[in-house]
């Protein structure tokens, strides 16, 4: 006699350790197999785009820290670049270099967190995570020296950075670079052939090249699917044109490729920081900008390659002290577009790994 079965709906989240915040997946299951997935957003929606309409351009910088709180430096940069594009403000050389150093350190910190929590999701409970966290701490300490904050840095300013780095920062950064190169090799040795990681991620949650492009995926998710597209190379902003670095890509677009791309990107970020440190010129770090900036009426779209993908700010000015409209193109939200296609057909525990490999931050998804 056949056993009668029927699909079963469960809610994973909003309070679930594997959703990395308050995100909910409504899963329809046939036994253990996922037959449908519906993402539910909005638990952390703070109306940031509306908030910005009542603030001056400079007052918005601390709000951008609260978008993707795992990489505030990148958010700062994306926003100030958009404003500088809109109001045509020059940036001193030294500030450009400091910005690049900060966002590349931020990329390493973000990828350490992403890889660490992916391993957690795979079931390698907290051992790799604590190794990653140890190095992330040293980056946070570096940022602490620069701006006195460990989470919401608020370091970039329109036309530069808030202030120059202390002498001991450069010394500490130099030591960190040497140490970090060794640690990345150590993670690779520990994890690349790790059986848990291979079984849980190889061939799981494949995102095809065509779907990745069509669903506007960006960042490591897009590159893991074999698309060599990095805004730092394709549309160099700031001074990225001056540095030598490679764009790592994957081949199959599975969770393992997304993991590999992140590990390789950390190496490339170290390369960029090394070059920036060698070329770092002396001088001013901030150009003269009126505190109540009134850009001429117009609009600008500035985008950067943030650790999670293409982070864009669309600004419309009406000539007043506050933006008429500010829209944030959040990579984490848009990378989730193809989540359903990646998870269907896999089991519940694979849904956790696929979500972990996309690397979302709810502060940015919900805004």
């Amino acid at each position: 006699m056949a056993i009668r079965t029927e699909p079963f709906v469960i809610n994973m989240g909003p309070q679930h350790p594997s959703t990395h915040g308050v995100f909910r997946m409504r899963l329809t299951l046939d036994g253990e197999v996922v037959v449908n997935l519906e993402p539910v957003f909005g638990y952390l929606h703070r109306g940031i785009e509306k908030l910005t309409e009542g603030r001056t351009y400079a007052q918005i910088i601390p709000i951008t820290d609260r978008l993707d709180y795992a990489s505030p430096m990148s958010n700062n940069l994306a926003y100030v670049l958009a404003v500088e594009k809109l109001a045509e403000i020059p940036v001193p050389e030294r500030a450009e270099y400091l910005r690049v150093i900060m966002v590349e350190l931020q990329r390493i910190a973000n990828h350490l967190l992403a890889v660490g929590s992916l391993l957690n999701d795979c079931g390698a409970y907290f051992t790799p995570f604590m190794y990653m966290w140890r190095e992330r701490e040293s980056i946070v300490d570096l940022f602490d020296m620069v701006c006195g904050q460990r989470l919401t840095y608020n370091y970039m300013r329109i036309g530069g950075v808030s202030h120059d780095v202390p002498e001991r920062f450069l010394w500490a950064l130099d030591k960190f670079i040497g140490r970090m190169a060794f640690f990345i090799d150590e993670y690779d040795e520990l994890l690349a052939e790790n059986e848990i990681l291979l079984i849980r991620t190889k061939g799981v949650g494949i995102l095809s090249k065509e779907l990745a492009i069509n669903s506007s995926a960006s960042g490591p998710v897009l590159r893991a699917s074999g698309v060599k597209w990095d805004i730092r190379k394709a549309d160099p902003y700031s001074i990225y044109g001056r540095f030598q670095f490679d764009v790592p890509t994957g081949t199959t677009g599975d969770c393992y490729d997304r993991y590999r791309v992140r590990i390789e990107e950390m190496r490339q970020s170290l390369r960029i920081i090394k070059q920036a440190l060698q070329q770092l010129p002396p001088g001013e770090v901030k150009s003269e900008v009126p505190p109540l900036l009134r850009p001429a009426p117009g609009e600008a779209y500035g985008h950067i390659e943030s650790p999670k993908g293409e982070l864009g700010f669309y600004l419309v000015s009406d000539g007043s002290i506050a933006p008429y409209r500010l829209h944030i193109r959040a990579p984490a939200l848009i990378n989730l577009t193809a989540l359903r296609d990646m998870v269907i057909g896999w089991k519940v525990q694979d849904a956790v790994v696929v979500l972990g490999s996309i690397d979302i931050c709810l502060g940015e998804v919900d805004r």
Partner: protein
Amino acid sequence: MTLLLSGEKTGTKLEEKFPGSIVESNRDSFLVKSEFLLPVATYIKNTPGLEFNYLASITAVDYDDYFEVVYHLTSLRHNHSLVMKTRFYDRDNPHLPSVVGLWRGADFQEREIYDLMGISFDGHPNMTRLFLWDSFEGHPLRRDYL
């Protein structure tokens, strides 16, 4: 560098192909009539030489008299970009054709615009609010929302 295609040149080309479709164009963008949005979008996605296969961002702006929806498009093959705009003048029931069929990346972004700006997209497979709850009244990003 990603080359920003001139809205003027592209606009003139599109006007020849679809007479009456382009309202105005300038250096940075072109404005397409909402009736012509889908044919124009299909054309610029599939025509060799343009091939805008990547929809970077969609957003909407409320200019009191009308809503403007802005599409930032990129071609990963040719490394060039284009800004396409369209307007809708009726504040009570604004609706535009959805481009989800062309670019899946529009899925959540169109739902976000519907949620916060109140513009609905015809042909979207799941036109529901993205962030706010279903019984929420009003659309917070409109200028007259207080």
